[in-house]
């Protein structure tokens, strides 16, 4: 019976292997729409018969393992591209908001109000005793100051929002890191225990991409199968089964720095050069801060020049002109730009005259500041603002192009990943047919072997 039982064994192995094949097809088909799922394949191999000398003729079969089809290098590239994409996306989001704040294509922005401001001075010069002209000038000045306050206020708010966003993102990041450490544990002990850890590997791969979307990282796979994750400056975030939290801490400028939760003296903000955190930090600390500084410069220079000329003139009472705009507060700067309260309360104190006799010469001089190169000796106020707006437009256009480019590279990589790891229904259906055939054939074997056994027993039965 030795050979017949071998036939049974082999048929049993055949059934079992094809069943496993069908189960694998089932996994793939069930997960055809699971994001990050790498298709699995039953690796079927012949069972070697070295240690059973009698059965040199027969070769059994076994499932060696369930292989996860993925390209390690592609995964590495995708993680890297993730941080580029996250960075570009944050930049574009912020610049879109900034562009919307300053959008003057429908009129009503600072440039138009600046023009109206200079015009109000010219109108006053033509009729220095006119109460209407004086009140109109006060209104135009207040509107201009209000617009400067509004725009700079919105920029400042955007900075604060990004700041809060950084804090929230760090929390999310900590969550992902803890999950990676947890999965590392499962991988190490799962591999040791020979369990199927393919879906854990998939999840961990997805987590790596998510982490890299948030901040640029380096990672290394250890010999035990764990993945160690490092910041771009080498500080470890995940080491085998331990993860390290990041935290935020307010710094001297009132915004958050990123620090290590277990070592608050270690400031790692400079390590966040990519990913969403990198993008948000760059926008908060460089781009928006730069635009605020530009507005400060513009308003500051204008106020300085207007006040200087105003102080050389005389108001309707014969008094020397005081401040027309309030001088800047050191902390708030342009965010608190205001017309001097005395002027606002009493327009007759506008020093429009160059003598005590109420002519309009000083108003004319101030109105002529429209064409004076008050910005660094090379640009008028209007030109400076127009270039400023053009720069914002250029930055927004660049950010859009950059995002578009990174997205298309990422799409390429994702497509390649799909090709390697994606589930093709056509292919799986073919495999299903194949394994079903194999299963049927193996079942036939069992039935034939059973008939053989019955025949044999019939021989012995009397």
């Amino acid at each position: 019976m030795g050979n017949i039982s071998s036939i049974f064994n082999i048929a049993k192995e055949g059934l079992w292997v094809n069943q496993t094949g069908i189960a694998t097809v089932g996994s793939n088909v069930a997960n055809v729409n699971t994001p990050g799922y790498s298709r699995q394949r039953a690796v079927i191999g012949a069972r070697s018969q070295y240690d059973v000398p009698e059965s040199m003729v027969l070769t059994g079969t076994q499932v060696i393992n369930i292989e996860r089809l993925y390209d390690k290098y592609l995964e590495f590239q995708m993680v890297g591209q993730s941080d580029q994409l996250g960075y570009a996306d944050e930049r574009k989001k912020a610049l879109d908001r900034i562009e919307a704040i300053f959008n003057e294509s429908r009129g009503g922005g600072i440039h138009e109000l600046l023009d109206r401001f200079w015009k109000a001075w010219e109108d006053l010069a033509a009729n220095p005793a006119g109460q209407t002209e004086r009140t109109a000038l006060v209104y135009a000045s207040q509107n201009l100051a209000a617009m400067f306050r509004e725009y700079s206020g919105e920029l400042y708010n955007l900075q604060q929002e990004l700041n809060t966003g950084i804090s929230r993102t760090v929390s999310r990041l900590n969550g992902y890191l803890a999950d990676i450490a947890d999965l590392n544990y499962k991988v190490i002990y799962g591999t040791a225990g020979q369990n199927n850890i393919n879906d854990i590997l998939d999840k961990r791969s997805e987590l790596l991409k998510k982490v890299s979307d948030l901040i640029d990282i380096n990672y290394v796979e250890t010999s035990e199968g764990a993945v160690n994750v490092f910041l771009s400056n080498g500080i470890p975030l995940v080491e085998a089964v331990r993860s390290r939290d990041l935290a935020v801490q307010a710094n001297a400028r009132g915004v958050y720095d990123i620090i290590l939760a277990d070592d608050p003296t270690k400031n790692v903000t400079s390590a966040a050069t990519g990913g969403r955190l990198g993008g948000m930090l760059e926008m908060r600390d460089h781009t928006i801060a730069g635009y605020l500084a530009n507005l400060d410069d513009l308003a500051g220079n204008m106020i300085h020049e207007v006040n200087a000329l105003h102080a050389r003139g005389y108001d309707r009472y014969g008094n020397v002109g005081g401040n027309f705009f309030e001088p800047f507060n050191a902390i708030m700067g342009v965010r608190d730009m205001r017309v001097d309260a005395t002027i606002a309360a009493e327009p007759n104190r506008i020093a429009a005259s160059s003598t005590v006799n109420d002519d309009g010469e000083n108003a004319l001089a101030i109105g002529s500041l429209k064409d004076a190169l008050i910005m660094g000796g090379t640009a008028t106020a209007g030109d400076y603002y127009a270039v400023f707006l053009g720069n914002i437009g250029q930055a927004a256009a660049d950010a859009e192009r950059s995002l578009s480019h990174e997205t298309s590279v990422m799409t390429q990589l994702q497509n390649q990943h799909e090709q390697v790891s994606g589930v093709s229904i056509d292919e799986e259906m073919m495999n299903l047919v194949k394994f079903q055939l194999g299963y049927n054939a193996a079942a036939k074997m069992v039935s034939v072997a059973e008939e053989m056994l019955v025949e044999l027993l019939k021989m012995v039965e009397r």
Partner: protein
Amino acid sequence: MRITENLKFRMLNDALSHAQKNYGRLAEKMASQKNINRPSDDPGGTTEVLGYRSVRESIGQYRRNIENAGAWMEITNTKLESVQKIIAEAKETGLNDQSPGLRQVLAQTVGSLIEELLSLANSKHGDRYLFSGTETDTEPFRRTILPVAASANTFDGSLYTGGTYAAGSDKTFTVRIANGGALGAATYQVSEDGGTTWQPGPAGTVPADGTITLGDGLTLTFVDDGSNRLTAGDLFTVNAYRSGTTTAPQVGDPRAAAHNTFAGTVTLDAATGTYAGDTNKTFVVKFVNGGAIGDADYRISADGGRTWSAVYSAPWGNTITVDGTAGHEIVLAFAGDDLAENDLFYVRAYTSGNYAGNGDDLSVRIGKGNRATYNVSGEEAFTDRGRGEVDLFAALETLKTALENGDKDLINRQVNRLTAAQDHIRQQIASVGARMSGLNISRENLQVLDEKMSGLISDREDVDLEAIIVEFQMRETALRASYVMAVEIGKKSILDFLT
């Protein structure tokens, strides 16, 4: 190359969202009719368009200024032409045959011509006086109470009337010199009825300062600045008009700017002499730091505050000399508490005559760095100070008095003066006319420039509607095709064929 379901669907999605994005952008352009709907659509264009818009605003302002200046100048010329007619009529009276009865009628004619001239010279445009220089809310002229010396007089020094005429009706004073001599020695008599009766009693002596009282608050001052002294027989006529103004140089009351910190008083010190300048001026004192009276440092200006002297820091007691002309100082006296930085005090000094404005220019900008002066000051048009040539009011008043007195020589001299005045006014009219032509040329240039700017803005900013509509239809077709394809491709799979 393996194709999976996910790959197919992702590719379809990408194509769809791409088509949607282009479609959306086009729809936006069509709705707004602009190529530039946000700075990132065309950063260079954004900057340029803002610049062009700014230029157009300026152009608009310049055009408004030109209109206003032009209107002012037209009215000025209309008034000046009326003045020419008045001068011509006045000359007529002087050239006419002059029998005694006719002369009085002619004198009255000249009187009414003077009233007309006064009204013209005090014309307003809106609520600003045309002929006051920059002091556009000060009435420039009042009727002059002019002292007229008879042409037969020997005395050839200056004459001023002073004080304030307080009587309720017009009157003529005549003064005759009884005994000649220097000031302080000569004697005089006054008549109030044209020389018929003289003041009772002996002749009075002309005081050393040359000022004699005529009556009703009026004084007459002789200044020995000619070659001959007062001589017996010299006759002087003064027509006093109700609410007229005397001709002596005056220094107004010093004023403090309304919002000074200083709470004390400032007055003209007794050491103040007669103002000797030949145009109206405003003197200003400005304190550059705070301190007690006598301590605080200050500067002085002689042109209303436009230019300033160096800082005076020496201790100054309680008086400041704002005009240091020897013998004709103007001194201010301060009394009270401390002065503060930027406290300001000013005093107006009027030269002899009846003009209360100044000789400054009013101008507006009609181009970048390009200004147009649009006024003619009363000083220039009707007086003989500053840029003026002939004291027109004085000439007419003298003509009237001369006609009343039958002083033929005096009449002829005034007619000559009036001819010179006519020439001068003609020049003013021509100059204003030339300025107006200049403005017209500027106006046309600005019009051309404005149209050009508008064109440049439109080129950059406005959509070419036909091109956009065609492109829009193409995109719409492309989008529709994408939809159809997506559905078709999505439907087919091997499952349809497995039994």
